[in-house]
């Protein structure tokens, strides 16, 4: 079916990137960012800087109305100053919320140059640093999308069910701040973003188009951060799962830290609260980040990717694809020490 904006592309630099990590991804999806850097450097031969002095973008606080815009733009200015200091011009945040914060700050500076000068002054007053605005800013999923065809011949696996020979059915979920704030910053724009769908289609899978495809994952900052509001959060997530359930997805692919976390973890909570799981056999629907998926298809060790840290376990998915893995190494720690095995939930099977 023809989609008007499907072909919409944005400018993505070819090389020499300054990477900015997410605040929460290294906790919940511990291998994703390291995998991204490995793919860029080892598979694609790109130059990407991972500066140890980086810090939060304030996104969570900013969207929770506890950090004012002036503070946010000064913090953003400091991150840009790190990029400038390292000699880079292409900025690549790992987090969709950060990507939204940067594009918003840059848009405000473009519309009101006095604000940019104010940020320069604040930054100088605070730490005597200077910055340049990036020439190119893209989300890290944009880079994997851009190089998806280049990566394809290097992949050991495809998104095909080896038992049936049919494409895997994949739900893709895009973080709200990727394109809903500034549609022209998203591949495919806001209605039918193509950044993850493009990866899925290129690598042999089939994208599921379900009614609540664009709905929020349930993170929504204040919905979750204020404990009394968490009912809103899980209600949103539940709505999405109810909507995708009839299509029997094999897994969910996301490009946002919060989305991956909430769509993964809330499956356990819903199972405990309502005795409900969203696959027919009670195992839940695995949720992957795009780095994890790319790494899996490239043949990386799933435990190095951090899949054992997921709430919904991925072994059944790996078996469907035919990915070789060693169950005995799942909880192997650094130095070969076997870590304690986590308790298994009663309702959500593992």
């Amino acid at each position, binding site marked *: *079916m023809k989609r008007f904006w499907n072909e919409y592309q944005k400018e993505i630099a070819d090389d020499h990137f300054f990477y900015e990590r997410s605040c929460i991804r290294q906790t919940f999806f511990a291998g994703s960012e390291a995998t991204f850097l490995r793919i860029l450097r080892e598979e694609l031969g790109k130059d990407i800087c991972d500066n140890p002095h980086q810090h939060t973008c304030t996104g969570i606080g900013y969207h929770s109305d506890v950090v004012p815009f002036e503070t946010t733009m000064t913090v953003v200015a400091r991150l840009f100053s790190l990029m400038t200091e390292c000699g880079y011009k292409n900025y690549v945040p790992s987090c969709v919320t950060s990507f939204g914060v940067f594009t918003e700050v840059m848009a405000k500076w473009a519309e009101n140059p006095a604000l940019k000068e104010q940020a320069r002054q604040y930054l100088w007053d605070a730490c005597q640093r200077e910055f340049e605005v990036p020439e190119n800013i893209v989300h890290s999923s944009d880079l994997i999308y851009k190089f998806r065809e280049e990566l394809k011949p290097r992949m050991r696996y495809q998104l095909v069910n080896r038992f049936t020979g049919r494409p895997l059915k994949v739900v893709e979920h895009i973080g709200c701040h990727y394109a809903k704030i500034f549609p022209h910053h998203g591949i495919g724009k806001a209605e039918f973003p193509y950044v993850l769908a493009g990866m899925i289609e290129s690598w042999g899978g089939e994208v599921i188009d379900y009614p609540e495809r664009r709905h929020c994952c349930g993170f929504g900052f204040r919905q979750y951060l204020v404990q009394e509001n968490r009912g809103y959060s899980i209600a949103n997530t539940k709505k999405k799962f109810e909507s995708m359930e009839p299509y029997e997805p094999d897994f969910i692919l996301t490009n946002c830290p919060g989305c991956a976390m909430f769509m993964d973890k809330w499956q356990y909570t819903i199972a405990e609260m309502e005795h409900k799981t969203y696959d027919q056999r009670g195992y839940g629907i695995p949720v992957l980040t795009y780095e994890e998926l790319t790494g899996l298809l490239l043949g990386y060790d799933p435990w190095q990717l951090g899949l054992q840290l997921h709430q919904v376990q991925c072994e059944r998915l790996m078996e469907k694809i035919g990915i070789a893995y060693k169950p005995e190494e799942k909880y192997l720690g650094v130095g070969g020490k076997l870590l304690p095995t986590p308790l298994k939930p009663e309702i959500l099977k593992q």
Partner: protein
Amino acid sequence: MKKVAIIGAGPAGIEAASLLAAQGVDAVLYEKEQQPLHNLTDKAFLFPNFADAQEVAEKILAKLNTPGLTLKADTEVTQLQPQAASNGWLVNGEAFDAVLLTSGYTTFDAHRKEELGYGIYPGIHTSLEMEKMLREGKVVNTIGEMPRRIAFLQCVGSRDEKVGNHYCSKLCCVTAVKQAIEVKKLMPQCEVYVFYMDLRMWGQHFEELYRQAQTDYGIKFIRGRISEAGGTFDRKVQIKAEDTLMGRPLKLTVDLFVLMVGMEASRGTRNLGALAGIAGEYGFAQSVDPHIADNLTAQNGLFVAGSCKRPMTLTDSLTDARSAAFEVLKQLLEN
């Protein structure tokens, strides 16, 4: 004998050409399609009195038989050039004393509102497609059964900053009311919803029709825009909206979702308006003055009538065409 080219054989073109021919003018009527009046012959019934569109069309088409009127169908005008020496115009290589532009409108391409799912999900139709179903007396859902719930959405491609059309298309409000009533006449048990920004019942009997839709047919009018539509697993359409009177978000699953597409300048209007130097806002043709010289243009000997200027009803187009014919005759006599 004076010779006038009329470009576009819609209601305005046929009406003006027949009047000019009846007054002894050699009226040559150009039409790029094979059949004239196609924007009317594809309708079922006309608002506000549910007149049979085919009967009305036949009456208008009969005027093509006026002696002195020559129809050149399947002929696109590609040359429209003033001739300083003769004070006339050259149309496709033929000399004329005057030209009347009646190249009309086209409907908004609903694919451009991607969030509304047209062309992406089954069960989503334009108002033109609904009109066709009504004309055939058969309105069915995606699996060929009688629909149980239908939603109409107003202002698709009009009053919409996002697509660049700020203007009101004028006809869609009453057309939705008319189509909703026709649906209820055909299938009284079907639930019908109309989503609107504000209903503009400006014409004679329009307001009565709107009231009748609510009191006699139980059609539900909801003030609010639909933000997105998506296909469901059972081939229905899920729509999300905000009921702005209730101040609440709303989600509804319907069998059919009908987009009331607005009017835009036709390709011919855009091209010829630009060619002749009379292109106005949104690609429509520009008259000299909307109050006192609405059929005259900045170009001597070039006249405009009907919906090539702005969205117009059939009635308004016909009236405007008569006015234009009079202006053309006046200039021919003066020359």
